[in-house]
């Protein structure tokens, strides 16, 4: 059997804002096809961790190894790295001046330097996947939250990233729209897309993922398969957090 190499290796990662240490000694790996959920209370550093991985925040210590290369070194081409590590935001961040179609094409055309035809094909292919192909002529402000998030997912997919990061993709949506976005994410999971997801949707974390990372106060408190975390949590903190969420 071929030895599996991790896509991303996070080693001893730390981040501080001034004197405030928000991430301490974070260590974990993401293998191809892995679906990793990061759970934890608000303020535990989940989003900051994800933003550090995409270098939207600069970590203050540690390493992020991608393709055998530490991306925190000075000479690394950051935009090229980000093109391979997609990101979906809580607030969608679609380009307001472009139609749905353009939103999905612009990365292929201007970053990957693909032809207009290829970009169009890919944009339509991935918009089909998220069920938004009929809306190619709409502007973001004309869509509902759930629709915007699905377009944002298609935009990220059109770059054909090696791993896709989701930063609380459903937190800004009402319950009905949460369903449609999670449905899309479920289908992507089935197709084998590598995903790293920060979420408060515990049922989703339990059913879809194969690795769960529980964070508290800027450290990884517990880490394991969904069964290990949700059925037999070892740490008191994890049990407390889960019981609070499950009783809702």
């Amino acid at each position, binding site marked *: 059997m071929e030895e599996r190499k991790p896509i991303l290796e996070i080693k001893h990662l730390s981040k501080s804002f001034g004197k405030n240490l928000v991430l301490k000694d974070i260590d974990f790996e993401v293998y191809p096809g892995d679906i990793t959920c990061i759970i934890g209370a608000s303020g535990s550093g989940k989003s900051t961790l994800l933003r550090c991985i*995409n270098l*939207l925040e600069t970590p203050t210590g540690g390493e992020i190894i991608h393709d055998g290369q530490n991306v925190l070194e*000075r000479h690394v081409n950051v*935009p*090229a*790295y*980000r*093109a*391979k590590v*997609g*990101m979906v*935001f809580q*607030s*969608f*961040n*679609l*380009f*307001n*001046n472009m*139609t749905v179609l353009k939103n999905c094409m*612009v*990365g292929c055309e*201007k*970053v990957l330097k693909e032809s207009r035809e290829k970009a169009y*094909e890919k944009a*339509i*292919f991935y*918009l*089909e*996947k998220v069920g938004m*192909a*009929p*809306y*190619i*002529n*709409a*502007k973001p402000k*004309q869509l509902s939250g759930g629709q915007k998030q699905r377009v*944002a997912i298609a*935009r*990220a*997919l059109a*770059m*054909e990233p090696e791993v896709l990061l989701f930063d609380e993709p459903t937190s800004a949506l009402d319950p009905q729209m949460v369903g449609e976005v999670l449905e899309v994410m479920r289908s*992507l999971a089935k*197709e*084998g*897309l590598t995903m790293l997801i920060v979420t408060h949707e515990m049922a989703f974390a339990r059913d879809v993922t194969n690795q769960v990372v529980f964070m508290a106060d800027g450290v990884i408190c517990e880490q394991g398969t969904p069964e290990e975390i949700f059925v037999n949590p070892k740490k008191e903190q994890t049990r407390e957090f889960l019981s609070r969420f499950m009783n809702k």
Partner: protein
Amino acid sequence: MLPPDFLGRLLFLLDRYGVSLLQGAGRTLIIAIIGTVIGCLIGFVVGIIQTIPVSKNDNMFKKIILKIVRIILAIYVEVFRGTPMMVQAMFIYYGSLQYLGVDMTMWAAAIFIVSINTGAYMAETVRGGILSIDRGQTEGAAAIGMNHFTTMVYVVLPQALRNIMPQIGNNLIINIKDTCVLSVISVVELFFVSKGIAGAYYTYFETFTLTMVIYLIMTVVCSRLLMLLERKMDGPDTYDLATTDTLAHTSGMMSYSAKKGGR
């Protein structure tokens, strides 16, 4: 002979000097429009330079150059925003004639002064326009691997331009009116022409009634046209569903990794 009543005099002046007035108005309009366009370009360049982000990892050379350029640009903005255009006109036109031996033609001097003035105001407007764009837009662009330049050109500037359109319209209207101060360096625009006509027959009230009307027509037409342009930039309020268009690309049969492998 000059007719005795007000209306008669208006018609008389129109008949005799209508063409000169229109020529003056044309010059005013050309100077104002070209000045505004070049001023906007200057404003964009200055505004963009003022908002280039500097990170800790950048090399010393870039930081120093950027610092020096920014100081020069800040001085430019302060000087031209902080002195009257009429005084600048005298200073630049006669200064260049007397000490540099350069005789700027009427057109060159007029357009140069209006542009550089508008540029100073627009620099701050553009800076504000860029800062007003939500950080999420830049983060969204960064997340798909766009560099600073691409992000600016395709994401931030188009939105900033749309947001500052009302301000650009304001500047155009101000320029149409303010070109009259260029009469001090003998630019033959609408005000200069009017003054000549008024003096010739001692018909100040009648002539300047015409002048007022012409200025008003120019500014109102320009502001309406700009509003139309703004509406055009916003695009249609509705959109068409494109169901039939995409049926050819039925998905669901290709998996994500298969697609990737087949590339």
